[in-house]
């Protein structure tokens, strides 16, 4: 997708593709993704690999762990994309 600007809703839809068990109603920007059923460290790795595939950036483990919600994660990725 390159480094074009993304909006948070598109980011959430893209994120759902990498989750085994997204909530039935879909991800909300306030969703605490690490509390989702079946969340594991492997799931986190898959999500970060998805960032690389979708946006051409990755995030560090500390950045990922500090992000509580989908919106937090979105901000980290956007910041990386701007670097």
């Amino acid at each position, binding site marked *: 997708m390159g480094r074009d600007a993304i909006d948070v809703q598109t980011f959430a839809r893209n994120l759902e593709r990498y989750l085994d068990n997204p909530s039935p109603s879909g991800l909300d920007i306030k969703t605490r993704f690490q509390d989702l059923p079946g969340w*594991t*460290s*492997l*799931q986190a*790795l898959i999500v*970060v690999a998805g960032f690389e595939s979708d946006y051409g950036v*990755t995030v560090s*483990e500390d950045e990922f762990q500090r992000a509580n919600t989908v919106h937090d994660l979105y901000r980290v990725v956007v910041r990386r994309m701007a670097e």
Partner: protein
Amino acid sequence: MAIFSIPDLRVSGVCTALPIQVVRNQDLDLLSKTQIEAFERTVGIRTRRIAPASVCASDLCVDASRFLLERVGLRAADIGLLVFVTQTPDYPLPGNSMLAQRQLGLPASTYLLDLNQGCAGYVYGLASLAGLMSATGIEKGLLLAGDTLTRIVSTHDGSTLPIFSDAGSATLVERDPGSDLMYFNLENQGQGADVIQIKGGGARQPFGPESLVMSEESDNVVRAPIHLSMRGIDVLHYCAKYVVPNIKELLAFANVDRGTPDYYVLHQANRIVNDCLVRQLGIPGDKAPETLSEYGNTSCASIPVTMCRRLSQQLTSGSARLLLSGFGSGFSWGSALISAKSVQCPEPREISEADGI
């Protein structure tokens, strides 16, 4: 900048040795059936090799060395230099190069060197061996690269146990005036020293009762300070950021394009990382042979293991330009561009205690 070329040397043989015991990740009690299915689908490792308790990295590499010397018709006395790469040495000291010298019967005049390098170790070892041969005029050198990482991971750590595997290798480099240059590009980022680490048991945290105290780091991750720890997201982060630029820089230095290498033999880390690198490189998947699903992550041995398992026929009876890329603990990464022509590169050997180790 550690980007350089070395003339008049060629890789003339590569042999590898794997323990005969196969373990299947689906048989692990540690993870649920659903978790194992997801792991195999995404990380891509189905089976691994585990050395019996009496077999260490020196044994695997020495077995590969004996086989290699026999294949190329050399005697131990012909070897002037031996570099041993491992992070699981048989003993804290002396280094494994000494043990290999004893087991192979190399002369006292042999130049011996031990390198503490992990998954980047094969490229670092090859560069060090070639550099020393170039500086000293030594005619024939052996690179031994191997690990028994299954010995140092916690059996209760779902983030490392299903990944790592045991293997050893031996690579012969010989003087060959006029042969194609060997190109290397070596890089490190010490800020990532704790991405893959064993904190206990060294001089900073000497071994003691606390070295064995198990603690739960997260779900399915229980380990002690003497066990290997790995921050998987950071590994991916470093690899995605540094490895492909390193390769592209090397290709530009060698004045070739990405289509020149016939094969990109990448360290077999995990499918998530390796797929990311292949995508970034923009090369067809079949140019990056894999052994991950069958052998798991064999650390510094994964590049020679992949050469022997997937490219044996092409390298033994033909020729190819190979781009080798290793990356891992340190954080270290490096690449090499070499020409391989009529390289003795048989299929990996499978060995057990019954083979006389």
